């Protein structure tokens, strides 16, 4: 009954608004704000990429040793991300499905992944309960999040990309206060790791327990997190974020990992394991100038990362393996190096100390919806770096255009010097629906 009255009311209001505002040429069609239990949205994306290959780099030798040498290769990526939700009363179902199609010099591939799929119960604004596959996205860092213990790592080249979650049971309890402490919330998480369930997270047959406590204290966001349960070693962390002035924000993260096990290889191919307590940290800032330039700057110390000598040994071993392959056709050493690369060496930024800087200028020269940016990642340990100019245009409704170039520079046996590519140019055309 009440629902029908609301609908009638909306209809009348919609008509009256449409009429009232017609003479101003503004309209607010209230059907736009009608609440629908089912929502389906998302985007489709086409992303061609041109790679300038570095034929002499270690990673080229490791991955493409049995292929012809070419200077330039192209790749075509198609993506469809479907985001749907259904709400009934205080219960909501939410799912994100991602499909990637790739055509590259390595062939064609297709992968469809359920990024998220969970049910939420919200009996009150102070409490909610979630069960299913979900990304938790802990941490305050922009490019890296050392304390995001339950998330897959970000790609620092594109930190805003949607990521796949893990199957968890979680809840949020929120409490607001008057005073210096304005908000407290607690998020307990249970994460089962069994065969076929989160089995890429860590050791299987474990039920992991994690939690996050959030405080808004003295206008500062503060989080404390922990993870225990056995799939990974115990770890604890904290982060903070605060506006020093209205246009200047600082943030940081600290992560303590007990008994971190690191595998690395020497130049002879001997694999070593080392266990130690690792303390990683991140410090960053975001600054907006009067001329609408936004700077994001971060320093990241990853104590789980590889030392300079460990990286050098690894590249040296690849060279040895490649020489052996050229002489005898025996690729066993390269395959061994490749297996080791599945661990620490295969991470986006595998070493210890990095600087990140992103500068973006909103609408320069009065070109509306146009944002040029420049992103740089500097490896402090080996002084190699990547730098990426980028142009973004969002002037057409629901269409997002981005042209991005990344140049990688570094000496021999450095991280960016030994990457597969010298440069990369990509166009991203994304349409939201």
């Amino acid at each position, binding site marked *: 009954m009440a629902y029908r009255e609301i609908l009638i009311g909306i209809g009348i*209001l919609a008509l009256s*608004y449409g009429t*009232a*505002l017609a003479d*101003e040429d*503004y309209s*607010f069609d*209230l059907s*736009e*704000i009608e*609440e629908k239990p089912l929502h389906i*949205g998302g*985007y489709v994306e086409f992303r061609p990429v041109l790679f300038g290959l570095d034929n002499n780099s270690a990673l080229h030798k490791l991955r493409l040793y049995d292929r012809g040498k070419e200077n330039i290769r192209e790749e075509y990526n198609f993506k469809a991300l479907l*985001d749907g939700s259904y709400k009934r009363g205080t219960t*909501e179902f939410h799912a994100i499905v991602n499909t990637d199609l790739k055509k590259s010099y390595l062939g064609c591939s297709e992968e469809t992944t359920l990024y998220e799929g969970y049910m*939420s119960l*919200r009996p*009150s*604004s*102070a409490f*909610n309960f979630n069960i299913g596959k979900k990304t938790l*996205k802990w*941490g*305050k860092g*922009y490019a890296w999040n050392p304390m995001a213990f339950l998330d897959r790592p970000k790609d620092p080249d594109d*930190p*805003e*990309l*949607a990521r796949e979650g893990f199957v968890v049971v979680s809840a*949020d309890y*929120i409490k*607001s*206060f*008057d*005073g*210096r402490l*304005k*908000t407290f*919330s607690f*998020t307990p998480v249970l994460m089962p790791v069994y065969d076929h369930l989160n089995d890429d997270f860590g050791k299987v047959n474990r039920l992991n327990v994690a939690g996050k406590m959030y405080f*808004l204290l*003295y*206008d500062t*966001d503060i989080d404390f997190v922990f993870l225990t349960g056995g799939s990974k070693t115990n770890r604890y962390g904290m982060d903070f974020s605060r*506006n020093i*002035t*209205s*246009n200047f*924000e600082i943030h940081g993260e600290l992560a303590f990992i007990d008994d971190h096990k690191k595998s690395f290889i020497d130049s002879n191919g001997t694999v070593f394991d080392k266990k130690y307590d690792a303390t990683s940290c991140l410090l960053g800032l*975001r600054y*907006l100038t009067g001329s*609408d330039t936004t700077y994001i700057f971060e320093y990241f110390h990853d104590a789980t990362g590889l030392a300079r000598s460990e990286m050098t040994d690894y590249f040296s071993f690849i060279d040895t393996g490649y020489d052996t392959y050229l002489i005898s056709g025996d690729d066993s050493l390269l395959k061994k190096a490749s297996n080791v690369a599945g661990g620490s060496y295969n991470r986006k930024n595998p070493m210890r100390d990095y600087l990140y800087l992103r500068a973006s200028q909103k*609408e320069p020269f009065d070109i*509306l*919806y146009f944002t040029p940016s420049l992103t740089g990642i500097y490896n402090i340990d080996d002084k190699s770096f990547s730098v990426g100019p980028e142009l973004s245009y969002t002037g057409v*409704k*629901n269409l*997002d255009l981005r042209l991005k170039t990344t140049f990688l520079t570094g000496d021999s046996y450095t991280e960016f010097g030994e990457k597969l590519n010298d440069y990369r140019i990509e166009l991203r055309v994304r349409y*939201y*629906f």
Partner: protein
Amino acid sequence: MKKAFFSILVVLSLSPIMSYADREDTPKIAVASNGKDAKSAMIGSKADRCPYYLIFGGTGELTEVVGNPYKDVQSGAGPQTAVFLADKGVTVIIAETFGDKMITAMRSNNTDYFQLNGTVIDAVRKVLSPGNRILVKLDRNLNPDSYESYKKLINIEPNGKKREYVLFTVKKGKDKVAAMFLSPASEKGRSTLRLDENMWLYIPNVGKPIRITSLQSVVGGVFNNSDILRLDYAAEYFVEKMEEPGDKEKSSDKKELSDKYILHLRAKTKAVAYDKLKMWVDKDTILPVRIECLTEASMLIKTIYYKKTEDFGDKIVRPSVIETDSPLYKGYKSVMIFAKIKKRTFKDEVFTLTFMPNLESLR
């Protein structure tokens, strides 16, 4: 004797505004001071370290002079002073500057504050001025203390091209506002939260809310974040001066003064988006007609026009369209259209970072 004489003087000097004082809701004003003598006292430079507070009643009479018991403590002077004055029933504190901790404590105690300099008498006069009363009334006429509404933002380019955004907005009390984008598809699910001067933006794929500033704009165009997530005007500004019909000779807006008040507002703190506002207020409805947003040097940043007064029901009668243009964005215009403004109470937990991804559930 001297104190009594001075009290009479103060009362007489404030007599023109006494009629405005609402006796059922009279403010009690404490002014930070370096001396006890209200006749000559200047406003104290630091609210937490000043030696005295001169306390005035709602009609401007000096009622009490108290020493600041926390002026010499090593830490926590600001919050303790705020609590001390709140316990005395003080509702407004005036000083040249306040520390962040004292501001937080004052807000917790629902104590209003003004950063002013000059003499104590002038400050009390300003705070009790009819202009400030009008400003509070204007805020309540614009929207209930706690409400929900829908807004459509339209950015219009010089060539007529438009970009539209629809938001669902909720507000509670003086300092809590949240909004969620319903369209276009590229923005859907994004939400913004404002707690006093703290602002965050939540982007679904990025996940964690990131801090944003009041001068940025989540939608581009002429409206910035503080315009979109606007608090009550009286929460951020005070009336420094009000032009009235008697001021016609010196006013630059002689014609308008017949049916409008012209209020000159100043930001209470540096964190507020605009240093000054010049506000034209309709005398009959006590609703804004036009607002010029100015820098400290009175440079015009933008002009906001309130148009098309509508009856939204439940005694909410207010402009349904706000337009803005700016000399800094020549040829561009932004419009905000309101719909379905409705009184509604919310729990404080709605206005938290943890709740930001769930704002949709309030619809």
